[in-house]
């Protein structure tokens, strides 16, 4: 068997020899040249595979890409930089009416010169007029009417009628401030013409009239009565314009005036709490329902353009304060000083819950009435200068306010078996709420007292029964728009930074839309503000802020994909690493080989040509 099977194998070496011998004959040819054109089948194949890989790669990249709605980063950038460089300003018209003055006679000044003097003085008094929400931005629209009795002059383009009609009435009878205010409103009302025009009327009285009386009314005008020189008249007018009407009578630029405690949804929840520190001694209750109806509703109505306010109340028991007080013989009461205030709020025992009903991003302002226990009964707040506080309360910006209310008699009824249940009398409650409303005004960044002392004298600020006068509301709404736009810009900035810093974060379309709409609303707010439409501007700015907050706090924004790039690499590398290596190597080799073979062919061709 072996022999048979092996036999045919034997001729093989013999056969092999023939090609070898042939090869040996043509070896010099074979190594350096070839007679046929090199085939490109394999080259095309491997290049096709390579190219299909290269083409397919973007598709794969796309498929594993995380969806990110495009956010207008450059617009956000430009919006915030614009808000910084060019703060929001409302157009305001100022009108000064001088009755009984004769500038032209004494100084040789016309109404235009007086207007220029007032403007100059105003910019001196209001150096930070470029602050957001202010009037005009350093460029004031001041018109002047000078009624000297015999002649009447006015600046060009002023709307006031010359001479002033109600002048005689003023001099005629002694009116109370309120009546005077109403009367001025009546006779300046038609002058006003609907927009936000502020006016100051200076009546030059006789010398014997005594002290000068300067009053700022409930509406948008003020008046100065008494014997004043021309210079004083100008400086007083400028001060009322610059300090009171434009800044709300606030000195300096404290931090808290920058913030408005209004929620992103434009709502404020006023949460009133009555805290009985020790119900064993006495239990106080209040008829809050009545207070709500009679006292709070007008305030809520007045603040409607700025915020949508809701009111809640509760009575809590066993809520001691967490700071200590000491007995003071001089004042005859227990004293807690301003140093103790940070520790007064007892967050363990005072469960002044945030409101469930408010929901969303409403701002809750806590207004707390604290009734001390019998042990520390007359409890008084000592000011740093050693006096007792008249209001016996304090505020904490953006949180709320606390008032300590001491019962009339601090003697506990030891005999009675039942607990001492009392109700705060309406008179006391009313006083308490005056203080609380003052605190609310302070929380909103207004003055809580009725006197403004400026450089050129004191001004009486007339209060409104609604708690907020018209010019105060103007200041507030300006501030509100500013605060909204600023917070919108900062939130947008943080959002864009966040989005740019996290490349694997999913951004759904809704967020992109909200950002877009928010920017649009902010633009609207700015344009409304420049045309002086306060309410529409407030609404748009609020919308801008709430939209961007919605975007920022969107539930999906936290869904950062945990499918990180490393992860992706780890999953695809077992496939792509070997395959790409194969493909690239194959393509390279084929290309090399083709070039080499082609050279051989060309060499042969050249040889052929030479031969032929």
């Amino acid at each position: 068997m072996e022999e048979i099977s092996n036999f045919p194998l034997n001729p093989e070496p013999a056969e092999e020899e023939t090609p070898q011998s042939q090869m040996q004959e043509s070896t010099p040819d074979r190594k350096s040249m070839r007679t046929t054109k090199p085939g490109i089948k394999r080259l095309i194949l491997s290049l096709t595979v390579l190219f299909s890989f290269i083409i397919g790669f973007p598709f794969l990249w796309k498929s594993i890409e995380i969806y990110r709605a495009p956010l207008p980063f450059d617009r956000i950038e430009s919006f915030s930089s614009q808000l910084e460089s060019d703060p929001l300003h409302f157009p305001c018209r100022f009108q000064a009416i001088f009755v009984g003055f004769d500038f032209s006679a004494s100084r040789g000044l016309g109404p235009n010169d007086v207007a220029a003097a007032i403007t100059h003085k105003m910019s001196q008094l209001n150096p930070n007029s470029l602050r957001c929400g202010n009037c005009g931005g350093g460029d004031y629209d001041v018109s002047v009417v000078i009624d000297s009795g015999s002649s009447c002059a006015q600046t060009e383009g002023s709307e006031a009628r010359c001479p002033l009609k109600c002048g005689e009435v003023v001099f005629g009878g002694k009116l109370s401030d309120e009546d005077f205010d109403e009367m001025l409103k009546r006779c300046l009302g038609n002058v006003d013409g609907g927009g936000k025009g502020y006016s100051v009327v200076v009546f030059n009285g006789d010398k014997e009239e005594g002290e000068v009386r300067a009053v700022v009314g409930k509406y948008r005008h003020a008046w100065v009565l008494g014997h004043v020189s021309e210079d004083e008249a100008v400086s007083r007018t400028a001060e009322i314009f610059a300090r009171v009407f434009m800044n709300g009578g606030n000195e300096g630029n404290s931090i808290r005036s920058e913030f408005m405690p209004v929620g992103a949804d434009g709502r404020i929840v006023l949460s009133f709490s009555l805290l009985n520190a020790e119900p064993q001694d006495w239990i106080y209750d209040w008829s809050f329902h009545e207070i709500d109806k009679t006292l709070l509703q007008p305030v809520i109505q007045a603040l409607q353009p700025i915020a949508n306010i809701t009111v809640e109340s509760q009575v809590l028991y066993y809520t001691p304060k967490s700071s200590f007080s000491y007995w003071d013989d001089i004042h005859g009461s227990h004293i807690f000083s301003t140093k103790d205030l940070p520790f007064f709020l007892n967050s363990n025992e005072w469960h002044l819950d945030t409101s469930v009903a408010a929901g969303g991003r409403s701002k809750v302002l806590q207004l707390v009435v604290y009734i001390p226990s019998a042990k520390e009964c007359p409890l008084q707040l000592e000011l740093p200068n050693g006096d007792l506080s008249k209001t016996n309360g304090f505020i904490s910006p953006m949180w709320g306010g606390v008032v300590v209310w001491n019962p009339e008699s601090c003697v506990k009824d030891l005999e009675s078996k039942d607990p001492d249940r009392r109700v705060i009398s309406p008179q006391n409650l009313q006083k308490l709420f005056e203080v609380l409303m003052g605190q609310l005004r302070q929380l909103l960044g207004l003055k809580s007292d009725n006197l403004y002392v400026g450089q050129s004298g004191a001004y009486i600020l007339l209060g409104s029964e609604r708690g907020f006068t018209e010019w105060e509301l103007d200041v507030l709404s300006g501030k509100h728009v500013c605060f909204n736009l600023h917070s919108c810009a900062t939130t947008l900035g943080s959002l864009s930074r966040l989005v740019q810093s996290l490349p694997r974060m999913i951004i759904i379309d809704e967020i992109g839309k909200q950002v877009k709409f928010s920017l649009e609303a902010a633009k609207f707010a700015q344009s409304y503000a420049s045309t002086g439409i306060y309410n529409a501007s407030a609404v748009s700015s609020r919308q801008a802020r709430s939209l961007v907050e919605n975007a920022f706090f969107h539930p999906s924004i936290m869904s950062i994909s945990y499918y990180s790039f490393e992860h992706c690499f780890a999953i695809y590398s077992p496939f792509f690493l070997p395959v790409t290596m194969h493909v690239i190597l194959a393509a390279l080799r084929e290309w090399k080989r083709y070039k080499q073979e082609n050279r051989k062919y060309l060499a042969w061709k050249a040889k052929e040509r030479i031969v032929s």
Partner: protein
Amino acid sequence: MALLSRKGTLFLLFLFSIFLLSASASNGSGEEEEEFWEELLLKPLPDRKVLSHFHFQNEAPLSDSFARHHHLFPKSIAQLVKKFHIKAMELSFTQGRWNYERWGGFDPISSHNAKPPGVELWAVFDVPPHQVDASWKDLTHALSGLFCASINFLESSTTYSAPKWTFQSALGSLRYGTLPREAVCTENLTPWLKLLPCRDKAGLSALMDRPSIYKSFYHSQRLHLTQAKTGADPKNSRVVLEQTLTVVLQPNILTGGTNYVSEAKMQPSWSLSSIFGRKINGRCVLAKSSNVYLQVERGLVTQLENLQSSTATFAANGTNLDDFGRNVGFELSVNPDRVLKEVEKSSSILYEYPIKVHKDSEQFDLGITWKHPVIWSTPHVPLYASRFLMGSGNERGAIAICMKSTESTQELVAANYVDQRCNFQVNVLQIVPWYIKVYYHTLQLFVDEKPQILTDFVERMHVSPSEDKVSPGLMELVLKLPCEVKSAVLNIEFDKGFLHIDEYPPDANQGFDIPSAIISFPDFNAGLQFSDNSLSKTPMLSKLQERSPVISYTEVLLVPLTTPDFSMPYNVITITCTVFALYFGSLLNALRRRVGEEERRLNDKGGKKDALLNRVLGKLSSKFRGRSSVSSQPSSSSSSSLISPKLILRVLLVAGIAVAWQYYS
């Protein structure tokens, strides 16, 4: 902080005359007040434990200012009611399991306060049907924030369902969900206490010493909201918030003087200070009434009466248990103000102790000292229900609900119709998560251990099958069982489903919980009937007297499901990728292979080499084979080509590597 300083006169902001007028007018209008009660019920249990049941009730009129202005009622709850339009709601946090055999199941306390472990929540909404689910979801989130618990897990539609008959009929606007694995601790109790006007600063709640409460055998904290209508006018209705805490405690044994009976048989004597470590310092001043009750059960009363009649001296005096502190069985440290007795013959007794206003000198400390060993049993549920799993493995199983008759059903037989056929109704509610795929057609009923046709006993049935990843399965049965029934077993088979990899909870290997089944007996009335109805009723007394069906819960079942290797998807992806890469690479290589050319080149190069190797190998092999092969010289070359030298070399190489590996590793 900024000071509110005032230098000038007060800023007159408002006009006051209107206000003064209206305030004086409205004071007399008689607006309904918010009210608050607090009560504590103590009850010695047969197994030497003590049940203490705190009951706080808060009521507020549903007026315009509801949810806005409150004096006693918790604002947060009122706002919940208003915001989500809640008609009724019950939330319970429970730890431990109520022992129906020993602690009783036929009394108001157990049927209201014995709850399944973990969190149970049901709510009835006053909204159109399509909004109910949305309201439920919002409510779960709000509650979970309020009570620091993961109630928000009930938001998913796979966790809640809408039973029809077990709870108050609410016609589709009721939702029910449980979280059996929720751990209950102080962080849940503190927000619950915050809803009380006195919190735990004063009154009965001051007894709640956290270590003693949480080392108890059973602990259930409950919040129940209802709207009670006082008149025909819907405006007159009141919102009632009932907060109860039920604790079963083991009292520390007080070393009493009487040692003549073996201590082991004696009930332990206890007092409030010994079980809670605190005494009652005084009532919560805001409560309308503040009472402590001591309940002596029917069984105990009967036993004591027997004991009394057998003891001659007491029998001569003719005293009964109404003369408190004089009976043979026990002695009370404080004399009660009032004794309430049930109207029936063998009846339980309630001793009432009103708590007075705080006085430093006197503290209230109720104690009971046992004088005689007494053994009694508590009234049992009509059918004692237990539930268990059958089958093994990770594929399929069966749930069995077994109901055994107790003495109360036998009493029923005895009391009622002797020759007439008597039936009683049993409602069974069973909710199963979707991954337990129940085959409802396999439902079997065994009555007295004999298989029965279902329709003979089932009066009504409501099944809503589970939908994968959408809703749980729900089965409600209304059974009519004969009074003389000994046992009834419901048996249903299921397949265990597979969950998606991200649906497994953390620690999936622990198993999955099937929430408790609820067995209720609407024909039985758990309420107690006290004789003097004329006296003013406190909320707890009226709760005890309320006609309510007997309800019991079964155990929670733990079903082990197949849990995957959680790294599996990555392994699968990687290995698939590798296989693809191998395939692709070799395919590509095969495509661009030039077979002819390679051979030629191989021959080019290898011709010489192979010849040399062949010669060497040939010589080697010929030497090995020796002479035998010399004769057949031609075959040697053939064999060498068969066992190619390359192959041998490779084998040697692999063997070498293997040896090296073995040696060095």
